[in-house]
């Protein structure tokens, strides 16, 4: 018989994830919708649930409302019951009114009272930002068998990407002997996934030492590697940060592709369908007589009369006759009117594309977004939450139409590649 381990989980869900541009204009990154009916945080929460862990504290900071609504009582992930619970830990200031969390370790340190009031053998610290499937129970078992003070989940990434991560050098016993934080010239390709198992008492001790140590990767872990027992738990499998528009889009497309390694259903990923007033409580998807659909993920409550190719549709999306949606991700309740085209774009919730409009015109993917060249540079166009694209409007590549833009905000019938448009009200 397998008995659930009594480890406390802390989920860091406060990050803004600002490279996701308008997708995080009204919500924190963990609350960004993903794969039709899910949100990014569902993957971490479901991993916790499927690992038999029962107590979770969720640290919020940036735009937490949407997230709190989604977490609700935690029932969707089976966190309700006598010994179970999910607790939202809102940010709190330190001595000064102005000091918000200065880093991951600082955030956990400010919640030491929560940790102390929930005694456990280990504290598992994860972020709510990633798409992956992992058995945390096995990781805790590994941690115990190594008698580690800290265990860090690590995976091999291409050398070209290691500069975004904490990188560890291990000996043959998986002990981490050296560490480089976001190295420019890496000596290793073993990257930290930001998932840590700490011995309970060790965590309390180490956080109590020096308040200037505000970040796990920069401070706490490096000192631990020098002085204590830190091990790398090797992870093999699908794991994506989805921190950029491009990687977010690609991970969504992975759900459609066979053999990409991601399968929410097989991974037993749960979501809360009652967020936003039972947003996913809808009848089956409806397909019309002239529907043409392939290689797509389509959620209940959608109504497809036109063409959908290689796209991910959340609940309640309507694609009218003669409309084409291709290589795109559409959030809940988007409307694509007759004859409109949506190509290589991401439409936030409630986007309305007028008849005959084209979102994503032409083949020029290389004119980057002028306002945020580091966000949009591969050709993807973004339409913000509740925005309108008027009938017959043309919108180019790498464009951003901000949230709540209305018909009168458009300067003309064509938005050039790389432009952004804001609501004037």
């Amino acid at each position, binding site marked *: 018989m397998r008995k659930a381990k009594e480890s406390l989980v802390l989920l860091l869900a406060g990050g803004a994830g600002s490279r996701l541009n308008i997708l995080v204009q009204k919500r924190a990154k963990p609350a960004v919708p993903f794969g039709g009916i899910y949100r990014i945080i569902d993957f971490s929460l479901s991993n916790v649930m499927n690992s038999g862990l029962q107590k979770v504290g969720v640290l919020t900071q940036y735009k937490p409302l949407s997230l709190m609504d989604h977490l609700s009582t935690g029932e969707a992930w089976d966190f309700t019951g006598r010994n179970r619970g999910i607790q939202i830990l809102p940010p709190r200031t330190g001595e000064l009114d102005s000091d918000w969390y200065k880093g991951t370790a600082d955030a956990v340190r400010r919640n030491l009272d929560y940790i102390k009031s929930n005694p456990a053998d280990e504290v598992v610290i994860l972020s709510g930002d990633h798409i992956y499937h992992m058995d945390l129970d096995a990781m805790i078992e590994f941690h115990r068998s190594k008698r580690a003070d800290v265990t860090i989940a690590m995976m091999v990434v291409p050398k070209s990407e290691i500069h975004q991560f904490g990188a560890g050098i291990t000996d043959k016993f998986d002990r981490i002997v050296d560490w480089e934080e976001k190295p420019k010239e890496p000596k290793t390709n073993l990257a930290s996934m930001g998932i840590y198992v700490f011995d309970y008492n060790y965590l309390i001790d180490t956080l109590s030492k020096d308040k200037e140590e505000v970040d796990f990767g920069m401070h706490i872990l490096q000192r631990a590697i020098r002085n204590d027992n830190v091990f790398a738990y090797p992870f093999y499998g699908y794991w994506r940060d989805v921190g950029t528009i491009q990687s977010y889009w690609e991970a969504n497309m992975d759900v459609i592709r066979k053999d990409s390694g991601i399968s929410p259903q097989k991974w037993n990923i749960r979501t809360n369908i009652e967020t936003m007033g039972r947003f996913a409580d809808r009848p089956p998807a409806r397909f019309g007589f002239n529907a043409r659909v392939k290689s797509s993920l*389509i959620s209940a409550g959608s109504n497809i009369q036109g063409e959908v190719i290689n796209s991910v549709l959340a609940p309640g999306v309507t694609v009218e006759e003669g409309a084409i949606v291709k290589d795109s991700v559409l959030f809940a309740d988007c409307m694509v009117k007759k004859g409109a085209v949506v190509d290589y774009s991401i439409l936030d919730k409630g986007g309305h594309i007028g008849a005959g409009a084209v979102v994503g015109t032409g083949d020029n993917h290389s004119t980057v977004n002028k306002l945020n060249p580091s966000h949009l540079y591969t050709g993807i166009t973004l339409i913000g939450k509740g925005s309108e694209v008027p009938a017959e409007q043309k919108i180019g590549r790498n464009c951003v139409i901000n949230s709540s833009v209305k018909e009168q905000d458009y300067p003309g019938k064509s938005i050039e590649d790389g432009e952004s448009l804001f609501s004037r009200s």
Partner: protein
Amino acid sequence: MLKPTTLAIVLAGGRVDELNVLTYFRPKSAVPFGGFGRVIDFSLSNLMNSGIEQVALLSQYRSFSLINHIGTGAAWDMVGRYRHVSILPPFIGNDAADWYRGSADAVYKNLDFVKYHKPEEILIISGDHIYKMDYLDLIEYHYEKGADLTIAFTKVPQDEAHRFGLASLDDEDGIRGGRVTDYQEKPQNPQSNWASMTVMCFKPEVLYRALEENQAGESFHFGQDIIPMLLQGQYKVYGYKFDGYWGYTRTINEYWQSSMDLLGSEPLIDLDKWVFRTNLDHRQIRDNEPLLLGDSAVVTNSLIYNGCKVGGTVKNSILFPGVHVKSGATVENSVLFFNNIVGEGSHLNKVVSDVNNSFGPGSVVGAEVSDEGADVTVLGGNNQIPEKTHIGVGATVYPEIADKRWPEHVDSGEVLR
């Protein structure tokens, strides 16, 4: 605080022989419908949308599926201080060693529960029908007329009329309703085609008295006994005329037809507009990922719920969660319940298939060429159909046929037990 005054009683226990293999393990009201719900969800959604939130459910036959389906009642917003749904299973009385002997007997045996709620009006409805009705409008009419009993009636084709409880109605209130002057349960020579929808609003004391009196008799049904008794006793019985869609599913062909009414560009049953709700915790259907369509998928005029995977062709069909249509397979004019697997190159036409059936590659079920008048082919659940099996038009396959008992051909109209 404003307290609710209506108590609704849903008659949900019946099994219908004509529906046969689909009601082998569940009452008729729990038969899947609409790609993710159950037949009873129409009544429960009507109650929710009418704001009637004190509900009792009378079950008898194979209650398990129904009890599971209702859960806490939260799906229909029936959880709260004065909001509830209570399932009243049958029990054996003090004197008589019998189970429910009919719908009226079932309510009679639970009169203590009914009276405890001190209702000002009692709405008794069947859980077996497919329609959208605002019960408050009927209750309002009931009060306008000062009626003892108000029953909803709808017009059915004259040649079908003998299958229903029929009323003669006068035109006191035109298209709204009128006084019931005569009522006959399933008469051989129908004089009217106003069929009872089994939606009845009673004045409580009239109901209590009628049920008491009825106990002395030998038959215990609302249609057969209670309504005629009240008419005879000069009670004020009114008919509320309903002209919306009313689907009844007493035979496999009717079940299939009602399902097809979900499809088309102007569907007669529009689940979205009707604000149809089901319990997504039942069978954990909430945990299904969205529908996944392969690169050679063709899907037209169909309803498909989350959890399905379609690699082949689906036309004019309804797929419940967990159905896989493999590439090269074709499903048309069919209704496939939860977790059916349709193997490569199979062809299903005008089929109703209960849960967990798998069709081996190359099987052919129903007409190879579409024929409007063809009978429906129906399969009970948990069958593993061997590859290349032919099952003819209008055949009936019982649930859980043992592997070694499968013939290569099941003839048209044959019953495989």
